[in-house]
């Protein structure tokens, strides 16, 4: 292959330019640094860092994890040191990583979301936020915002007023009509939607006759959820005009390509990072090889192609 024949992997999400469509999913990639030993993380299209809230949260009690067939349940519950600590301690460490560093934002109240988003709006090297209105693991707020159109609209509109860069809203799959939710947040000013967050699930230790998670229910991720995620991405991509970011169970390039064919402009890799910390560069290479094999010069040619 000569270099001039290399396909163009660049995609755009709102004001963001991604060198390739592969990002990492919030809560599964730390702040990126954890993976720097495994590959050059600046080769990623973007990194969505951990869910950040107004103040420090300890998260849920242990145990927080259970393995399930082709998947896992987690109940981390947004453990993080809060937005001020992010700005003072973490931002300086990660701001010069040469890719889109995007912060996933959570809160229990609209005011908390607004507070976090306003502060992040001031950070030069954070070109976008992902609004997490879909976390199933915290009692107050989180998923509640993402499972009814009026509240999803309310929080998106409020953030749109204070946040002036690219605003991605992350949708919950635990809804009857995902396309309606996507249209609602599009109308409220989102530049993009990402989906799916985890499906609410549960597992029981039958010998101890107790739930395996301290919170009883938790969020299901991994290959098990891929068919549901793919269906939702396809439904949403047909329903909205803003770019869609697809995720849920992507383990390899073939999975990533399924999401792009279904209409995703970019994808995120989550749980797969736990199985193979160096999976992302393999996915990027695999997409590249696929485009060459299918004689596409530009990755945008396959988006929504089915």
């Amino acid at each position, binding site marked *: 292959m000569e270099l001039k024949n290399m396909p163009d992997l660049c995609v755009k999400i709102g004001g963001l330019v991604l060198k390739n469509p592969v990002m990492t999913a919030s809560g599964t990639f730390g702040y990126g640094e*954890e993976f720097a030993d495994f590959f050059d993380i600046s080769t990623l299209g973007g990194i969505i860092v951990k869910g950040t809230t107004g103040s420090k949260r300890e998260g849920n009690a*242990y145990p*927080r*994890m259970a393995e399930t067939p082709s998947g896992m349940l987690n109940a981390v519950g947004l453990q993080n040191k809060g937005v001020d600590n992010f700005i003072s301690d973490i931002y300086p460490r990660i701001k010069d990583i040469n890719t889109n560093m995007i912060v996933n934002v959570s809160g229990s109240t609209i005011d908390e979301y607004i507070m976090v988003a306003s502060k992040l709006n001031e950070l030069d090297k954070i070109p976008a936020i992902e609004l997490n209105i879909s976390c199933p693991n915290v009692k107050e707020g989180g998923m509640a915002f993402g499972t009814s159109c009026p509240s999803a609209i309310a929080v998106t509109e409020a953030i749109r007023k204070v946040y002036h860069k690219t605003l991605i809203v992350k949708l919950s799959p635990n809804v009857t009509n995902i396309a309606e939710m996507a249209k609602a947040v599009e109308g409220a000013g989102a530049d993009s939607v990402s989906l799916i967050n985890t499906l609410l699930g549960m597992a029981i230790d039958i010998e101890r006759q107790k739930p395996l998670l301290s919170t009883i229910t938790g969020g299901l991720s*991994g290959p098990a959820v891929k068919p549901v995620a793919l269906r939702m991405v396809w439904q949403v991509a047909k329903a909205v005009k803003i770019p869609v970011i697809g995720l849920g169970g992507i383990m390899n390039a073939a999975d990533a390509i399924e999401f792009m064919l279904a209409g995703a402009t970019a994808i995120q890799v989550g749980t797969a*990072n*736990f199985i193979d910390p160096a999976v992302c560069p393999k996915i990027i290479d695999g997409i590249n090889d696929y485009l060459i094999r299918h004689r596409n010069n530009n990755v945008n040619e396959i988006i929504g192609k089915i």
Partner: protein
Amino acid sequence: MKVVSNKNLNTKYFLLTLQPPDNMPVILPGQFAQVEIKDAKNTFLRRPLSVHDVDYKNNTIKLLVQIIGEGTKKLSEIKEGDSLNLVYPLGNSFSTSGADNVLLVGGGCGIAPLLYLARLLFEKNIKVTTLIGGSSESDILEADEYRKYGDVLITTLDASIGEKGLVTQHSVFNSDKFPYTAIYTCGPEPMMKALARIAKEMNIRCEVSLENMMACGIGACLCCVVDTNEGNKCTCTKGPVFNYKELKGWS
């Protein structure tokens, strides 16, 4: 990594010797590896396993594994010459400084991370005694290996070997002159908690190696936390070894 050998110790335990293609990195005693499980229908995540011993000369490491569920069962079937994917070395380590006469206590497969530690302590001229406990003789593993570095004490519930009872019931704890200035331990949590209580009473150091459920093993998922005096900490990066005093509910 190449599987150099897979030795069944008995029906429940096996010992893997592995050789990486490149030179081994520096490994500290108490560190662990995240081991990929191939070809298993229901084992999706890697499995955390302690480094049992390190041989820099031959460029090999050893894992001592108990068959628990599907993941470890699959691993027990691996053959010489097969390859195994490890992410390692992970986690912190036992501290080998400051101690002079050390008691290592392993419950069953809990002795896994202690052999390498025993050797390093021995090489530093620190006196090592290893107390191994199990239900029965078949749970008492590698006693001869530990004897290379010091005395070995044994307890079994059925008295098939050593003293009868739990490790914490071993006569060494009842002797007037308990000679040890530090306890390093790995095994079931109730056992480690009991040892921590003893250490507290005796006012000596006690380091415990936790086996919390892990997904990533590298500090990215926050699944493996333990409640400490400074809030939730990841067992995979801030542990697996903790001074019991740091842990909430342990003292």
